[in-house]
């Protein structure tokens, strides 16, 4: 008999199994033991919570009862004490400051920038028979978020950020779920040079006029007591937007194009919907409301491939989940991968069916069974930015190209803290008969 503290689960420390096959471990455990599974990982007690209502209870519990999980330790190395990392009372006013410039109305200001960069990538694909999605899309999303945040020309710093990011993401289980460990020298070096650049940018911008970007908004934002954010706070929030804001969206786009390439009927339907609405002009942000299938493709992609595939927390006091008591000190793991691929909540769950997310159908999705951006107060502050960016890039590319699979099988996964593919995902392209420019200015 395994489990921990009366909650059923597999016996013994599961560290090796989890390190080798994280998603498989979750799937096997939930099948064998039900909605709550207790297990030990690197000497620490965990409970896998695999029920939408219970997940909601965990993710909306007061911070005095349920705090951040072990992933806060590695997370804080790049994101400091930002709203993503902070579970203290100071979180609350800061969250409002960050959320305001990222509201669904305000992020529309970045639509032109997103489209400009997406069209540049589309142009660069015109001579390519085959492309490696993740490499190209990482560069695209990093360029977009850095420009939206800092008005940066990122070429000079691109490699440093990517190096720090890749170092940060590797070695997932040991870094994120295992015992706390010191970062490598390579990570320290990459991160130090990146931090120095951000410090310089903030110092320079303190004495310059506002350029209308997110950094300008952070520098002007005032706390509830009227105080400006200090440099350290601005840096932490900026880093969070950069690190959380580019790798997630590039993976979402990678899987969206991979799925569309392998589902010709869905892709045809999407291309027809875009052509019918736009005729011979190029997609702009204002078109998205009229072509809901674009966003539905993005949302269905995030159901099958929830880039932020897990959330972790720690019970700070004894808490009740349903009829079960979770003892103070236990860590809690919530997996969007498990819930969002569960037949109980999504009929034909493994099928790529974007129509689930069209306005008339999405209400039949059970409450709390879909949480690619999290739930509760820590829900992703950048979700509107990410959804807008992903929809504009998907729409732009599908308008220009027919996407065909280079490999017939779905990508193999090697999850880190994000749902990374084991190798880059390749697709083949064929140009469509659509405009090569000359549409109206984006609005």
């Amino acid at each position, binding site marked *: 008999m395994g489990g921990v503290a009366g909650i059923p689960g597999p016996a013994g420390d599961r560290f090796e199994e989890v390190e080798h096959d994280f998603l498989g471990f979750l799937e096997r455990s939930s099948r064998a033991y039900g909605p709550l599974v207790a297990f030990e990982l690197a000497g620490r007690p965990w409970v896998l919570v695999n029920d939408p209502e219970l997940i909601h209870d965990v993710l909306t519990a007061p911070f005095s009862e349920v705090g951040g999980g072990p992933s806060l330790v590695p997370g804080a190395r790049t994101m400091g004490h930002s709203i993503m990392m902070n579970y203290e009372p100071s979180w609350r006013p800061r969250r*409002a400051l960050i*959320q305001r410039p990222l*509201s*669904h109305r*305000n992020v529309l200001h970045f639509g032109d920038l997103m489209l400009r960069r997406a069209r540049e990538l589309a142009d660069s694909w015109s001579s390519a028979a085959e492309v490696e999605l993740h490499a190209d899309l990482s560069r695209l999303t990093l360029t977009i978020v850095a420009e939206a945040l800092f008005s940066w020309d990122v070429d000079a710093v691109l490699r440093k950020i990517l190096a720090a990011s890749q170092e940060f993401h590797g070695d997932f289980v040991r870094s994120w779920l295992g015992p706390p460990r010191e970062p490598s020298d390579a990570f320290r070096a990459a991160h130090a040079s990146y931090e120095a650049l951000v410090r310089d940018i903030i110092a320079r911008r303190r004495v310059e006029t506002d350029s209308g970007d997110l950094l300008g908004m952070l520098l002007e934002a005032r706390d509830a007591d009227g105080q400006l954010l200090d440099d350290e706070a601005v840096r932490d929030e900026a880093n969070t937007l950069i690190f959380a804001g580019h790798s997630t969206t590039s993976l979402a786009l990678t899987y969206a194009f991979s799925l569309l390439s392998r589902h010709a009927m869905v892709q045809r339907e999407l291309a027809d919907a875009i052509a019918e609405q736009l005729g011979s002009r190029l997609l702009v942000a204002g078109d998205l409301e009229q072509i809901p299938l674009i966003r539905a493709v993005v949302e269905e992609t995030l159901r099958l491939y929830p880039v932020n595939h897990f959330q972790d927390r720690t019970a700070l006091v004894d808490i009740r989940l349903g009829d079960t008591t979770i003892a103070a000190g236990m860590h809690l793991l919530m997996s969007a991968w498990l819930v969002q691929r569960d037949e109980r909540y999504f009929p034909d769950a493994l099928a790529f069916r974007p129509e689930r997310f069209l306005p008339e159908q999405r209400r039949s999705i059970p409450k*709390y069974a879909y*949480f690619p951006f999290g739930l509760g107060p820590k829900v992703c502050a950048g*979700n509107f930015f990410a959804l807008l960016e992903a929809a504009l890039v998907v729409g732009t590319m599908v308008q220009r190209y027919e996407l065909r699979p280079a490999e017939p099988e779905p990508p193999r996964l090697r999850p880190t803290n994000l749902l990374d593919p084991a190798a880059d995902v390749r697709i083949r392209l064929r140009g469509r008969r659509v405009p090569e420019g000359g549409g109206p200015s984006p609005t």
Partner: protein
Amino acid sequence: MSQPTAPASGVRWRVSVDESLCAASGQCEIFCPEVFEVGRVSTVKLDLPPSDLYDSLQDTADACPTRAISLSVGTA
């Protein structure tokens, strides 16, 4: 979901939360605690709030991560 951009003179806004969309993120309570209270879902304490809260309400509706908040023309 669309919201009016500005209330016409003499017209009151009615606030409602679509519970089927609400993810209890609590942003509404942060932005406008006079009107919203968040438990398992967000609830509206004042469904016809005073006009001096309209700016704050617009911010709140815009910031809701699931766009569960609606502002519609109400009657006093």
